[in-house]
């Protein structure tokens, strides 16, 4: 009898929890909480585009490196990649949204570093939400599209590469280089400044055995470059090609087109 009573109590508690969950989901507040990206995007009419990807070109080493495997960088602001990205994104989004020009401090957006401690990141929230609120003008647009550098793991180790550059892998029997343009796109709500969606650009093809989580290509005989020189037009063109081919795909994946 006592056992039966205990089971009845457990059943009541479970039923109560289920009822509360249904109530929570059906309530308007909870509806906003669980609202999907598409539902949030439905009300967006005006957008501003912010890009802070292309200030540095990084030369990284991976695989069988010496004890010093640090990477080096050189500036590529003269390539105007961020202007190109804004222009390409504007073209891609104009069919659906009214794209308004915005002004912002590019270096402030490019300088954001994520915390290596994941729980801190979760508690702190997305740093770009605050930047959009304080560093972008004009305010009041329905949403802001923020395009910034992304990171990707290098091989099986823990080291990462970021933004734009070349990584040279050294194996015992061969050595090869991969050109990459790693970036991610956020849609920030212009009223609440919450991130509606965030997505990193995905690889253009997976044909290479060495994979980076982003647009990249192996450097072969078809691409003669002299890495380390911002004046290298072949390098510039190859990076532009990666961006121009991957940007519309990523925007489509985010249901922005």
């Amino acid at each position, binding site marked *: 009898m006592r056992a039966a009573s205990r089971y009845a109590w457990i059943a009541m508690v479970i039923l109560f929890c289920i009822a509360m969950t249904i109530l929570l989901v059906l309530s308007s507040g909870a509806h906003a909480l669980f609202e999907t990206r598409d539902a949030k995007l439905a009300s967006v009419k005006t957008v501003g585009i912010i890009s802070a990807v292309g200030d540095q070109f990084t030369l990284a080493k991976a695989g069988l490196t010496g004890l010093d495997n640090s990477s080096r960088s050189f500036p590529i602001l003269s390539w105007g990649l961020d202007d190109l990205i804004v222009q390409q994104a504007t073209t891609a989004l104009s069919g659906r949204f009214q794209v308004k020009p915005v002004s912002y401090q590019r270096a402030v957006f490019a300088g954001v570093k994520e915390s290596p401690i994941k729980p801190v990141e979760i508690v702190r929230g997305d740093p770009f939400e605050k930047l959009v609120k304080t560093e972008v003008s004009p305010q009041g647009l329905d949403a802001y599209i923020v395009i910034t550098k992304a990171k990707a793991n290098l091989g099986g180790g823990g080291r990462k590469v970021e933004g734009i550059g070349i990584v040279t892998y050294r194996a015992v029997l061969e050595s090869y280089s991969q050109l990459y343009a790693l970036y991610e796109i956020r849609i920030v709500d212009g009223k609440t400044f919450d991130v509606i969606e965030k997505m990193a650009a995905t690889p253009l093809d997976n044909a290479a055995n060495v994979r*980076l989580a982003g647009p990249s290509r192996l450097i072969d005989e078809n691409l003669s470059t002299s890495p380390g020189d911002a004046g290298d037009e072949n390098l510039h063109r190859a990076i532009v090609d990666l961006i121009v081919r991957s940007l519309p795909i990523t925007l489509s994946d985010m249901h922005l087109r």
Partner: protein
Amino acid sequence: MSRIQAFLRCFAVKIARRAVSVSLLAAYCAIAALPVAASGQTAFTLPAPPFELPFLPPVSGNWTVTIGAEGQYKPDFEGAKASMLSAVPIFSIRRAGSADPFRSPRDSASIALIDFGDLRAGPAAKFVPARLQDGHPELFGLGDVNAALELGGFIEYFPVDWFRLRNETREGFGGHRGVVSDFSADFIVPVTRAITISGGPRFAWESTEAISPYFSINAAQAMATGLPIFNAMGGAHTAGAGAQVKYQINPQWEVHSYVEYDRLLGDAANSPLVTARGSVNQTTVGIGASYSFDFKIQ
């Protein structure tokens, strides 16, 4: 009696081999049935989820799934002289394009919550199956040891891309309630872009509570088995080495093989269960294949 044991062992190995063959065949059939390989196209597209959970990243985008099977030939139980073949499934899911992080066969399931790139740390968990006396004549009279879940953390450091140091320290719940600390070092040598060889030394320390359920013999067990009473104490538990080779045939298919050798140390090695009926030499050999394909969530 020894003939019966030999027959039973042979029978068990045959059954295990058949299990591996069947699982490999099933994996192959499942893989062959997949419509499109992960070569720049996604195998299928799933609709966007009807709702999104707060604080969790959106699941939209491309994902890579890896499935496969591995045949593992390892000691029947820790300290056993005989080994048995068993099938182990392989499954992982990750964002498309991301590199598969290096894993040693002895690594437990873990998540890096702290990630400085070359230094990573986070929680780790390992399931230790029950040790059942049925089917193992050398254990008759010792009774069963329940399965244990070991929970703890890991820390690993890559001073360079080709060398990893790792420690896992876990506390057991269930079959044992002791502390286990595994240390390993791995040299990771890419031979070509498709072939990677790795290997290095291993060492394990275990507390008395972790060793005792498996290697102590109390008075009742001594009466039942004829083995002397033994009180196993904690300390250095195993030392050994491991090596593995991975060959990525193409972006979809990968085959791998490994061997892990451990020598029991301390009271585990001195236990009458090992000295009279087992072996201090513990070798595990594995060979497996996996297939990766991409899918997309709208």
